[in-house]
């Protein structure tokens, strides 16, 4: 109990004094997971919309695969990305392992199926006649996509939140492909693991609290956007 209170006090101190190391760790978390989320939104929403609107043999299998991907264990993704980025691996020449970019790649692989899966469900949940109506009014394919995405914006924003929440909080892939290197690839989750391993529980609690606050802040922003214009 004493440790918990100590940790909370330490967290407040680190936040109030804008501790430089904690600040840089927090910013890196935000950059890596933010960029990964953006990429996964592009991939997931684009792919998800296309998949939801098309019809072809094997679509069910593909959608099932995407839905399975929503539960991809981060450590497994981390392992495969590490093997691919090894110097002796197929993409070793890129020299990306133990860089923030490697973390972005791994987190993008984790978040994309989440965004895609929710997108597919959201688009398929729209009234089927809507699509015909939009097309009847002379919309191009791109305009159709944009209008449908707009109609489904509530669940789609939830998709972004789920994707971001999935990657900002994961530690398995981040520690494997990033290596938790001080000043380079140390993010909030990996730093929390390390500090608790070192026995610095008050700092670990502090980092955990900052992570929670960060998640809350981002999700609050997204929720505000989501609720701006309630569909009537």
């Amino acid at each position, binding site marked *: 109990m004493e440790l918990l209170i100590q940790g909370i006090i330490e967290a407040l101190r680190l936040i109030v004094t804008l501790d430089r190391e904690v600040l840089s760790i927090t910013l890196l978390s935000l950059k890596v997971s933010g960029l990964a989320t953006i990429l996964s939104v592009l991939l997931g929403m684009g792919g998800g919309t296309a998949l939801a609107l098309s019809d072809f043999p094997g679509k069910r299998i593909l959608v099932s695969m995407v839905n399975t991907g929503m539960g991809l264990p981060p450590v497994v993704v981390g392992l495969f990305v590490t093997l691919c980025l*090894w110097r002796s691996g197929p993409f070793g020449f890129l020299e990306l*392992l133990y860089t923030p970019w490697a973390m972005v790649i791994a987190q993008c692989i984790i978040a994309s199926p989440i965004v895609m899966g929710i997108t597919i469900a959201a688009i398929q949940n729209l009234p089927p006649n809507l699509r015909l109506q939009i097309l009847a009014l002379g919309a191009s394919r791109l305009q159709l996509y944009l209008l449908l995405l707009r109609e489904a914006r509530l669940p789609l924003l939830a998709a972004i939140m789920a994707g971001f929440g999935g990657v900002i909080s994961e530690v398995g892939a981040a520690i494997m492909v990033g290596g938790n290197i001080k000043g380079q690839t140390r993010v909030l989750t990996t730093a929390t693991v390390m500090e*608790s391993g070192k026995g610095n529980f008050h700092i670990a609690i502090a980092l955990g609290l900052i992570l929670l606050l960060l998640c809350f802040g981002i999700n609050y922003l997204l929720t505000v956007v989501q609720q701006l214009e309630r569909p009537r």
Partner: protein
Amino acid sequence: MRPLATITLLLLLLIAVASPAPAAPSKIIILATTTSTQDSGLLDLLIPLFEKESGYLVKSIAVGSGQAMKLGERGEADLLLVHSPDAEKKFMAAGFGVNRRLVMHNDFIIVGPPADPARIKGAKSSSAAFKLIAATGSLFVSRGDNSGTHAKEKELWKGVGINPEGEKWYQQSGLGMGQTLGVASEKRGYTLTDRGSYLAMKKNLGLAILVEGEPLLLNVYHVIQVNPHLWPRVNGAGALAFADFLLSPKGQGLIARFGVDRYGAPLFFPDAGKKPESLGF
């Protein structure tokens, strides 16, 4: 379209902030090392100073000594700082490494609950202590991760002719030293640890030092450069530079003073230029 526009703006903003520039490849050194050097905080002291002095960027990956050598075998690391002498000799004999040099030492200790159910405190040797633990079936928490500490522990069990694998009182954490100490403390078990990790974590542990000060328990750290002739991508020059820094008077002085202010005693003793046989208590 207002919400969509707002999101796009937010996303663009994030992209603008998110542009970590990668450094030139030849300036990067990958150091595979043990959890004890990271958990104690030693590397956090040494690496920034070396980077400032040399312009290299050191990426230290804290894994067990076993995994560090596996990375070295495949050329996935440039330099190893490890403490598993027998495995290191095999690594060198197979030609995977060059220039193995003694850096520093501390010692292993056997820690356990202060109540000491197996009565090992005051045991004449580590082997006597291990026999007592096995005979009383007291919980022993092993690293179980092929680290240098795990290798030493297996060597000690072998020395007393006991195979603890599969015994009920023998549990493997599969974690780093810091976390394993935490497990041992919570479960009131015994474990083998390097003194540095123990001192660094002591304040949060309910564990006491029960056996120490035996030549067999010496914990010796060597630096090994991964053979750059085997792997074209290995940064041989960078590895040599960091190894030389560790062994320089400056690096050795930093190692000698590390931890004195915080723990009242040094965590590591510098040994540049010495022979391992000359070390002792």
